[in-house]
């Protein structure tokens, strides 16, 4: 008996030692690996967050961190910041406007693309209206629309505007654009000059009709560039996403062949290529494969310093994707802007500097609300977001709305009613 208990206690000690040894080993490995990761993906990751930096939500986390630090460090500098919209902030009627500090709980769900900036806005809005609590969950545009239509949430977020069918189900839905997103093409090819593409070329590549990089179609877009005969590998998103929606919508507009054979949507039947999970999955696939081409969100490309080729717009100019050229796309599509703001702005017909693969992201609000305090809180928050919040969009790599569109969005807020009475008046 004594012998066996002695033996078992020795066994426990040994187990404990093993556990400690393994934990130490794991930490060492994690530390080494972590350093590699942070340098490989982005310079802004600190060593403690290095492991999350490679996860699929890397951009989200970083952008959010950035946002919160900026929000806490310089709360007063917000209106002066962000050069692209500085002009609009000056003319902004928000200067002496204060949101009503209503005690309300607002919940929203939807698109993951604008999640970092929404979280930053929500965090900052706490200091403006401390009694209003807002909760936004990024569950995807499709689920966001469902939650909104089923009255599970007070507002929805979506990268794809509601279809006519969905509008019949919830006819009082208002589409309020918040920021713009753009999709950039990424490729992995050693050339003496950076490449540029026209829409027709991209369609041919993603249809699989152009299979090598020295194809005359690509050469026509890139005069004077020495193109190797490397085979092309297409990498696309495998998850349903607004990024795919914008990209395929663009290809459908510039290529009838694409529109007939594939079409557009959050997920499509890709004729060729391989699927990657989210932006990091696509980016990793492209970076690891010579001759690969794919598409990612502009935000992701900017945050990870991926080269972003210029795309030919409807005016015939090759425009590099940037925050300014994305905003220019919205301005270029003004002529086609319908009253309800449900519009795709890919391939805008006007705007010499418009980047053609861009789109709005919207917040969905009911025009007939039942709860007065919620309605007041929501409209005030959105007005604040469209004015003060919008001024910081560029810092988080989001393209802000052009002034004309922002005014139309604010106009939508005045249409929100409770029992027939408007709850918000633009100052």
């Amino acid at each position, binding site marked *: 008996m004594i012998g066996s208990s002695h033996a078992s206690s020795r*066994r426990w000690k*040994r*187990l404990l030692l*093993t*556990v400690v040894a*393994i934990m130490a080993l794991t930490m060492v490995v994690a530390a080494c690996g972590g350093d590699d990761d942070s340098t490989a993906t982005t310079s802004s990751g600190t060593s403690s967050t290095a492991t999350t930096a*490679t*996860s699929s939500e890397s951009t989200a986390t970083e952008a959010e961190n950035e946002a919160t630090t900026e929000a806490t460090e310089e709360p007063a500098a917000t209106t002066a910041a962000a050069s692209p919209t500085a002009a609009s902030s000056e003319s902004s009627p928000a200067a002496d406007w204060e949101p009503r500090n209503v005690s309300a709980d607002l919940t929203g769900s939807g698109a993951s693309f604008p999640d970092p900036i929404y979280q930053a806005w929500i965090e900052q809005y706490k200091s403006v209206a401390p009694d209003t609590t807002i909760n936004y969950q990024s*569950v*995807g*545009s*499709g*689920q966001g629309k469902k939650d909104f239509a089923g009255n599970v949430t007070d507002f929805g977020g979506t990268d*794809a505007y509601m279809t006519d069918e969905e509008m019949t189900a919830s006819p009082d839905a208002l589409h309020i654009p918040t920021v713009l997103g753009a999709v950039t093409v990424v490729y992995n090819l050693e050339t003496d000059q950076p490449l540029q593409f026209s829409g027709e070329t991209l369609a041919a590549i993603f249809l699989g009709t152009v299979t090598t990089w020295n194809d005359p179609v690509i050469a026509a877009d890139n005069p004077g560039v020495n193109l190797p005969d490397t*085979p092309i*590998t297409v*990498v696309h998103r*495998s*998850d*349903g*996403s*607004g990024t795919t929606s914008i990209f395929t919508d663009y290809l459908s507009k510039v290529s009838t062949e694409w529109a007939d054979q*594939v*079409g*557009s*949507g*959050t*997920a*499509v*039947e*890709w004729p060729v*290529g*391989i*699927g*990657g*999970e989210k932006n990091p*999955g696509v980016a*990793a*696939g492209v970076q*690891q*494969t010579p001759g*690969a081409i794919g598409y990612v969100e502009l935000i992701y490309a900017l945050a990870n310093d991926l080269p972003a080729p210029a795309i030919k717009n409807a005016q015939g100019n090759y425009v590099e994707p940037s925050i300014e050229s994305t905003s220019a796309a919205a301005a270029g599509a003004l002529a086609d802007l319908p009253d309800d703001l449900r519009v795709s702005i890919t391939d805008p017909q006007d705007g010499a500097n418009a980047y053609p693969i861009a789109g709005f992201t919207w917040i969905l609000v009911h025009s007939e609300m039942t709860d007065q305090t919620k309605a007041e809180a929501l409209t005030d928050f959105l007005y604040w977001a469209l004015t003060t919040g919008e001024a910081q969009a560029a810092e988080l790599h989001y393209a802000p709305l052009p002034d004309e569109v922002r005014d139309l969005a604010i106009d939508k807020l005045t249409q929100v009613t409770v029992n027939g009475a408007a709850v918000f008046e633009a100052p």
Partner: protein
Amino acid sequence: MQHADAVSGWERLRRRTRHGDLLFWLIALSFAVLVVGLLVAIIAVTWDGSAAARHEFGFGFLTSSTWNPVKNQYGALPAIYGTVMSSAIALLIAGPIGVMIGVFLAEVSPSRLRMPLSFLVELLAAIPSVVYGMWGVFVFIPFFRTWIATPISERFGDAIPLLAGPVTVGRGMLVAGIILAIMIVPTIAAVSRDVLSVVPTHQREALIALGATRWEVIRHATIPYARAGIIGGMMLGLGRALGETMAATMVIGNTPRIEGSLFAPATTAASLVASQLPNAGSEMHSSALILVALVLFCITLVANSIARLLVWKVQRGSGGKA
């Protein structure tokens, strides 16, 4: 009469469950019922959610290989093929390795190595699948693509369609199978070790008495005795491989097409549902995805039932100690 019956029935229950046992009995019963209720609820939800797709496509859903969310045409065959094939590859690789580890731990290993090794093997099972997926994407696939897949497909690709190129990104069926294999090795090893260590000593001693070597003892006494349990462990591993979502999604290439080559991208039922459901474009799209989930549920149900049967068999075979 009826009243008296009821009282005596109540009395009987009370007698049987005296001293606070009744409370415990009720709590335990409610949890047991909860599990059954949960299962029923899951089946009901998937059945109900997939109604539109079931009516639209019927049994043709299982044999069609179109997956076109734009035209709302769906078929589950690529997902079924991908799920079964990647799990089969995983089992083919992990089965022998897992059993070898089990044999080593139970029979051959010096006792001072046994504990740390068992612990390490079980630690493998505790690693989250997203970590396996990341390791696959950033470490294993670049290595596999350059040093294994490309040379193999160049040399044998023309002769053997299963190994045909192009390898391109490297993500595909075989990589998914290998990653899944790594993930299920611990399950198979742990179960094998357990069933091998309960093989009665006299079985081994009898063979040793006949002058058998250690290998012959393992080959002719222990493994045959524990065979059913080992197969049960493999089926448990298979169950995990069939339902694995994250790691498979990250490394398989997510292409709902059936291609002959093992180096070509494919998809699995779990990864298809996980990646497309949150942003499903239409009602029919989400309905079809839920139907894929239901199909996957049936596949895993069959695999788990077989595992259960085999575990029962080994319990009988080794005196209820497995």
